[in-house]
């Protein structure tokens, strides 16, 4: 019954996706083909019509084999995660399904937990990351974690501290890192303050409150910019100092992609500048 809701574009892509589905259409990690179809149909609506995402540099993501896409976490809700998944599914020649590394708290919520596991969005554990990469899957990583999505609007596009775990795993599994910048999420859901009590009540790390009250993202145009893959040699057992300097390289590359992406958007959407002046934040933009 639900299967009929899957749109033809997704259906066509699902036929070509390279996942080891069993005769029950389940892969070894519990991904279900039907759930995947509904999931991408849902994301497709947002990707094409709501956020009207423009994707650049998708050729930097390998069509086969392991890869780690690493980006900035942008906006009060992780809409960037959904849009990055959609871009990897819809844009390349061969559709790729990426596994996100989800915060543990989401596993406690009914339905959310079930859906996440049926579409391969597993709890963010190093064991999962290593196993998936060794299985030649694509991993989607936001090394800022909740530090990134929990940013306030005044701190938009300023990269928070990066975790270093992803680098050790990439080196250990010899995985190329594809850096990406996600532009637009911060304007789509500008967080002006955090509702701490409510967050605690539902077991979430934060509860974003935008100027208009309800934490729903606005239909702001977004873009994704993939950069050239970066490969780091080693076995992942290097000292913290070595790892941190590698992480810093990735972070700088992402910062550069963000800068380019924002400059590009300025050319496309010059009226944004007017908006910025109106909110009194125009002068602080360049940082």
């Amino acid at each position: 019954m639900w299967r009929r809701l899957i749109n033809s574009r997704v259906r066509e892509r699902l036929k070509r996706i390279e996942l080891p589905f069993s005769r029950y259409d389940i892969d070894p990690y519990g991904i279900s083909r039907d759930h995947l179809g509904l999931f991408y149909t849902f994301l497709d609506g947002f990707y094409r019509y709501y956020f009207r995402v423009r994707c650049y540099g998708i050729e930097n993501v390998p069509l086969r084999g392991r890869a780690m896409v690493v980006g900035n976490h942008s906006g009060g809700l992780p809409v960037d995660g959904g849009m990055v998944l959609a871009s990897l599914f819809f844009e390349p020649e061969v559709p790729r399904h990426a596994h996100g590394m989800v915060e543990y708290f989401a596993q406690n919520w009914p339905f959310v937990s079930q859906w996440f596991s049926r579409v391969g969005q597993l709890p963010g554990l190093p064991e999962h990351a290593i196993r998936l990469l060794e299985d030649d899957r694509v991993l989607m990583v936001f090394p800022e974690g909740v530090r990134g999505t929990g940013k306030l609007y005044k701190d938009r596009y300023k990269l928070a501290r990066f975790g270093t775990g992803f680098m050790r795993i990439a080196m250990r599994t010899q995985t190329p890192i594809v850096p990406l910048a996600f532009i637009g999420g911060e304007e789509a859901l500008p967080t002006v303050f955090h509702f701490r009590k409510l967050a605690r009540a539902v077991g979430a790390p934060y509860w974003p409150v935008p100027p208009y009250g309800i934490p729903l993202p606005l239909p702001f145009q977004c873009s994704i910019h993939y950069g050239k893959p970066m490969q780091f040699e080693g076995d992942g057992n290097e000292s913290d100092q070595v790892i941190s300097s590698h992480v810093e390289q990735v972070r700088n590359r992402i910062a550069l992609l963000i800068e380019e992406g924002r400059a590009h958007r300025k050319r496309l959407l010059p009226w944004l500048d007017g908006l910025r002046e109106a909110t009194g934040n125009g002068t602080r933009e360049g940082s």
Partner: protein
Amino acid sequence: MKVVITGISGELGRMVTHRLLANGHCVLGIDRRPWPDAPRGVKMVRTDIRKRPAEDVFRSQRPEACIHLATVTHVTTGPDERYRINLGGTKMVFAYCSRYEVKQVVFVSRHTVYGAAPDVPLYRTEDEPPLAGWTFPELTDLVAADMYAVSGIWRWPDTATAVLRIVYTLGPSQRGTLANYIRGPRVPTVLGFDPLFQFLHEQDAARAIAAALEARLRGVFNVAGPSPVPLSVLCRATGRKNIPIPEPFFTRVLGRFGFPRLPPGAVGHLKYPVVVDGSAFQQAAGYSHDFDESQTMESFVYT
């Protein structure tokens, strides 16, 4: 090889016996329960493993190997008796094995000892600590027995000890923890959760135990079967209907409306997956399963 099997009258014990006899081994059995139609040549001693006649089997027969299957679960047995049988019994069996120089012990444990929780990985390896004592209190006695058997690996270096953490078994015998849970036509599940379930055909489980014995394994091994499937698919493929029940009411409906009786600790195992990586065992014992997931589920179709 002369093999003594404790808990031989259980379904798994019987299947292991047939397999060992077919492979040319000599089988002795210890169980409190009778096995009236035991094959000829199987020497049965009806006694409790903690009692004197059980020790006498080891003393007089001098078996070379022991398969310890005499453990019980919350499905059949209360907590006090569970501790006495699972922990007390396992301690005695290991004592007999070291005292009478048994060369190989296979302890059959369960993959559920790893425990289910929101933040545990899929495909857990043998390095992972068993958490079930925390997540599922009714399994604590089995976790303790498992850990005791694991300690036997270094405690008695002259005896090769293999601890097999086997996934749920399904099959025509309709026995076992999973079979007990999904026995009826309607299976209660927790609304909004649909964990992966990992199971093995009971004949494959028996074959794995025999393989561990014949390969003279030493160490802890997960025994997994075909790819895991979500609980909802398991229900559908076995001709049952899953009835999602909101968690606050879940424990209240258990044991009523034809639903199975489950301890409160089981709820976690119906929300989160316990999935293990069985590759180490496959490699060490040269074992692979014969029945895939659909054949296994078809063997347990509701009629």
